[in-house]
């Protein structure tokens, strides 16, 4: 693990990045003043705004590390990191493009054919189209090896049958990367899977809402009933799906969205403590600030590995486990310091943020691999399994 390497020295973000950071801040300030968004917690999941995503795309902040010929800006991994953390800290609605740009873009760049790259990347980078991810199924949650959705070969393509659940935003997205079985497992439960891009407007696709306990609709169940997909929409090699999915995990697990989902609440704590600086609030603010500062440095350190082309699965898992628990603890600590009878219709901004955060918090330690599964990964790296 990088963090305990005796020669490890803290990577610093280059000073030039502060110019870009200032640009993003100025943009966000203006948008806030114009009322184009209200800061929310969990904005990369719950803030779905194609218009806002397009505004970011117009500035070159969507898919910014990608090659220019695919609509990117060829900017560095760290420039992208800076833009992302600024957007998240502001609670800006980035949910429309977030997952597609975080996972599908890099997937296509690494494994996709030229045709797939030409067809999808420029429109992802301009936020014209949005991607959902189809991984989990009713009987395949943490245990991805149980996936049963099947793509059968047919003339000129594939015919897909099966069901996917928990696909965020699928009802508003254009395409889904479907993880499915294209061949026999043989003796290896990881073998025989592929990733196929399915146009969600295809005949045979049915999308049903799964309403969350807070009444929100961003999860869906997607049913595939003899859905035809042209041959070339299979990403990479048939049967290589498992490896490809694993390569996405480092990006998925160590980014700033794993500890900044509740940042707007932490800002509220500063206000609460300023108004009434009793020792408990002041100390809590200091403790949470220290944790956040540490987490961010861990995330930057993992980003340097990702930027160098490595797949730091274990380090990324550590960041996500610590980061998402920090998010949930932050909510609990603040609520106890400034309790109210929570209601999403409350007049105060703090109470609304808290009311919403309490109901989304359970997902923080589930999505992208439950923390228990992450700890299994960590334990394996420690030589225990």
């Amino acid at each position, binding site marked *: 693990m990088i963090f305990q390497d*005796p020669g490890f020295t803290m990577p610093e973000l280059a000073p030039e990045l502060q110019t870009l950071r200032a640009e993003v801040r100025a943009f966000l300030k203006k948008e806030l003043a114009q009322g184009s968004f209200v800061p929310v917690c969990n904005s990369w999941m719950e803030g779905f705004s194609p218009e806002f995503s397009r505004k970011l795309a117009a500035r070159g902040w969507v898919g910014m590390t990608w090659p220019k010929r695919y609509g990117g800006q060829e900017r560095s991994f760290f420039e992208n990191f800076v833009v992302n953390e600024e957007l998240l800290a502001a609670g800006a609605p980035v949910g429309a493009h977030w997952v597609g740009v975080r996972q599908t873009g890099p997937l296509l760049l690494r494994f996709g054919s030229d045709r797939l790259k030409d067809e999808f990347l420029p429109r992802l980078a301009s936020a014209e189209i949005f991607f959902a991810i189809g991984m989990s199924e009713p009987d395949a949650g943490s245990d991805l090896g149980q996936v049963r959705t099947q793509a059968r070969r047919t003339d000129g393509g594939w015919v897909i049958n099966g069901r996917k659940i928990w696909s965020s935003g699928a009802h508003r997205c254009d395409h889904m990367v479907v993880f499915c079985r294209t061949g026999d497992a043989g003796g290896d439960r990881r073998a025989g899977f592929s990733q196929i891009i399915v146009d969600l407007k295809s005949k045979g696709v049915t999308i049903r809402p799964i309403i969350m306990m807070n009444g929100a609709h961003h999860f869906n169940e997607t049913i595939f009933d003899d859905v035809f997909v042209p041959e070339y929409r299979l990403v990479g090699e048939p049967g290589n799906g498992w490896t490809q999915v694993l390569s996405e995990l480092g990006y998925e697990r160590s980014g700033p969205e794993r500890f900044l989902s509740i940042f707007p609440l932490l800002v509220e704590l500063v*206000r609460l403590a300023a108004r009434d600086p009793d020792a408990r609030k002041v*100390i809590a603010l200091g*403790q949470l600030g220290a944790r956040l500062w540490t987490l961010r440095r861990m995330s930057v*350190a993992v980003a340097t590995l990702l930027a160098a082309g490595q797949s730091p699965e274990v380090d990324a898992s550590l960041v996500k486990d610590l980061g998402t628990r920090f998010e949930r603890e932050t909510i609990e600590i603040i609520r106890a310091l400034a309790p109210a009878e929570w209601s999403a219709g409350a007049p105060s901004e703090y109470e609304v943020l808290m009311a919403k955060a309490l109901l989304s918090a359970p997902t923080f330690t589930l999505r992208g691999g439950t923390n228990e599964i992450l700890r299994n990964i960590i334990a394996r790296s420690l030589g225990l399994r």
Partner: protein
Amino acid sequence: MSEMRTMLVSSMERLLATECAPEVVNAAEKGEWPAKLWQALVDAGMTRAWLPEAEGGSGVGLGDVLAVLRAAGRHAAPVPLAETLLAGWMLSSSGMEVPDGPLTVAPVRARERLSLKKSGKGWTLSGAAGGVPWGGQAAHRVAIAWVGRQEYVVRIDGAAGKVRSARNLAGEPRDELTFDGVALGADAVAKAPAGVSQGELFRRGALARAALMAGATEKAMAHSLRYANERVQFGKPIGKFQSVQQQLALMSGEVAAACIAVEAAGASGGSGLAEAACAKVRVGEAAGVAAALAHQIHAAIGVTFEHTLHHSTRRLWSWREEFGAETDWAGYLGHWLIDLGAEGLWPAMTNQTGIPVAA
């Protein structure tokens, strides 16, 4: 990655592996000065590493010093290495010669004050300082003393003043020193130069403790991993049980956070004051969690004197309170963050030159 740092740490590891066996740590707790270990550290240049090359040092940076201390923490080295390095920094920055021998620093508590008075050609020192590491054994104590609102760096002979011996939870000497008009020569007193102050000593002391603690959590983790792989119950090593694996994974997260907090604070720009606060708070939290998990994994054997887990855990429980506990530093940090305002919280976290607070 830094090659210099890797070399420094590996030579420290080699040295401690031979000279800092568990028996040495136990003997030190009974009051025996670990002369061989100390001499090995002196010979390897570790005690003067932070001094400029012209003064016999290696001129390494703060980050490297913290990495050396992390290694000392891993081995529970029962010597005032951190204190000697801190004392050397104070003396050398003030233009005073750095004497050989183990040194210590005072005061180590935020609210204590030593006072200095002009007396003929020299000075007299008064006041008390508690919890001084190896205060009764050090060849010299290097202290901050005040004349009105002016701070001075003073070098006090090891025999001067009254010593009331005390020990922390790990049996390390933490003595109370009382100076009742102790005479100091003119050459043992210097106006504290810019950058040297009681506050800065407290900040660097907190960072040093954070580094030692990070090392001690690493050791507690190593003990726990080995025990989980060796101890067989219900027909298999307990490390094969998921409940134990989950605990070890949690612990490894805390250890990682502790190590990175120290490293990041050592590398921070600006005054580094808020970063030291962040590190002391976060490492202190990690210390508590890691110690508790280590003992839970070891069960009864871990609380015996025979097993050496306590060399790490008793130090963690002591060090997290020294040079300011988590609540102290979180209190300072909380006030600084309130001063920066709601709009200032995020910029503070991302500022390239550190969290902007007044030193």
